């Protein structure tokens, strides 16, 4: 018989661990104990503590005026960009936003702001992204328009960044798109797809937007 799996190995499972457990009474007891603790968590701990968890997570969201961001993308294991909420994510209340000279615009309507370490700055034309860069997007069209932004993942699928679903919201010049994206370390350029329209359109209808822009961002 193989050595008893560690607690970590038991948590991870797998064919070798399963084979050992099937032949080992001691480890069967360990696995059964773990199942009982899991059952207790689901029956008693989860319902008792989830409201407090929700409240605490919600307070943080309000406090930092941030969004969780990209849950749909995270849910499918996005290959290159991961949008997440963070106290460290870019804060649109910081002086940079809307206070400095003419912003650099992508597709004539989108400003990209990058936070790298503690430095927050606009992404300059031709400037390359670094792994770990935290990106925010600001709509800076000449007039209010309905906006949709997608990120093309490694598989080639263009996943919605904003909005998460439904109809493309009306955005006003200077408004930051909710959510942030973090650049991964995959060695390939990133591509954004920006769709704009004066009229509301459904994100499920790819041809509904009046304008579609492809934005390519190079990486180091």
């Amino acid at each position, binding site marked *: 018989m193989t*050595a*008893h*799996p*560690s*607690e*970590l*190995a038991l*948590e*991870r499972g797998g064919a070798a661990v399963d084979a050992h457990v099937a032949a080992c009474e001691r480890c069967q007891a360990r696995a059964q104990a*773990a199942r009982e*603790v*899991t059952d*207790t*968590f*689901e029956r008693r*701990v*989860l319902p*008792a*503590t*989830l409201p*407090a*968890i*929700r409240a*605490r*997570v919600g307070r*943080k969201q309000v406090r930092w005026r941030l969004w*969780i961001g990209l*849950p749909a993308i*995270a*849910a499918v*294991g*996005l*290959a290159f960009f*991961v949008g*997440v*909420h*963070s*106290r*460290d*994510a870019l804060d649109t209340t910081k002086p940079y936003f809307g206070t400095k000279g003419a912003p650099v615009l992508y597709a004539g309507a989108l400003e990209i702001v990058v936070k790298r370490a503690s430095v927050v700055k606009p992404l300059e034309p031709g400037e390359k992204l670094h792994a770990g860069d935290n990106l925010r997007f600001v709509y800076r069209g000449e007039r209010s328009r309905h906006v949709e932004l997608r990120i093309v993942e490694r598989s080639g699928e263009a996943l919605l960044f904003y909005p998460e679903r439904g109809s493309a919201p009306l955005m006003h010049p200077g408004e930051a798109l909710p959510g942030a994206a*973090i650049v*991964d370390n995959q060695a390939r350029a990133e591509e954004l797809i920006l769709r704009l329209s004066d009229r509301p359109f459904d994100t499920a209808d790819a041809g509904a937007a009046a304008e579609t822009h492809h934005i390519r961002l190079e990486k180091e």
Partner: protein
Amino acid sequence: MQDEELAALYRRCGAAIYRRCVKLLGDPAAAQDATQEVFIRFMNHQERLDPRDDYLPWIFRVATNHCLNVLRDDARLSLHDPSSLPDAGAPGEAAAFPERDLGRQLLRRFDETSQAVAVLTLVDGLSQDEVAEVLGTSRKTVGKKLRVFLERARRFMERSS
């Protein structure tokens, strides 16, 4: 994050955290409190975790450190027989270490990383490679800290007895 997504994440990761906390604290009420604290920390650090990665090493590290802080004034951990554990050091060295409670006075003699190394190895039976993965350090560092822990713990136990 939507409510249902948060609930799903809590159901998945919270269960693993709770199992870890029950294992180390042995007290369901204390484990329930610890689970919430560790999960909130998980949410705060989520942006630094790659969703493609296995969260278990992170959960093991943070939950272990949190529980060790909770246990600082307690002594509820017990050691396996070190000679039966993988990579526990030289056979003679490990076998000479008595099986008994890891008490407050003993744990306090070590830094946080050494405490975690000892618990992960001697309580949870992790190999040194697994401990290195969980703590984000090298196997060499784990081995060194474990040797120092065993030597100093043995001396401590000898003096205590």
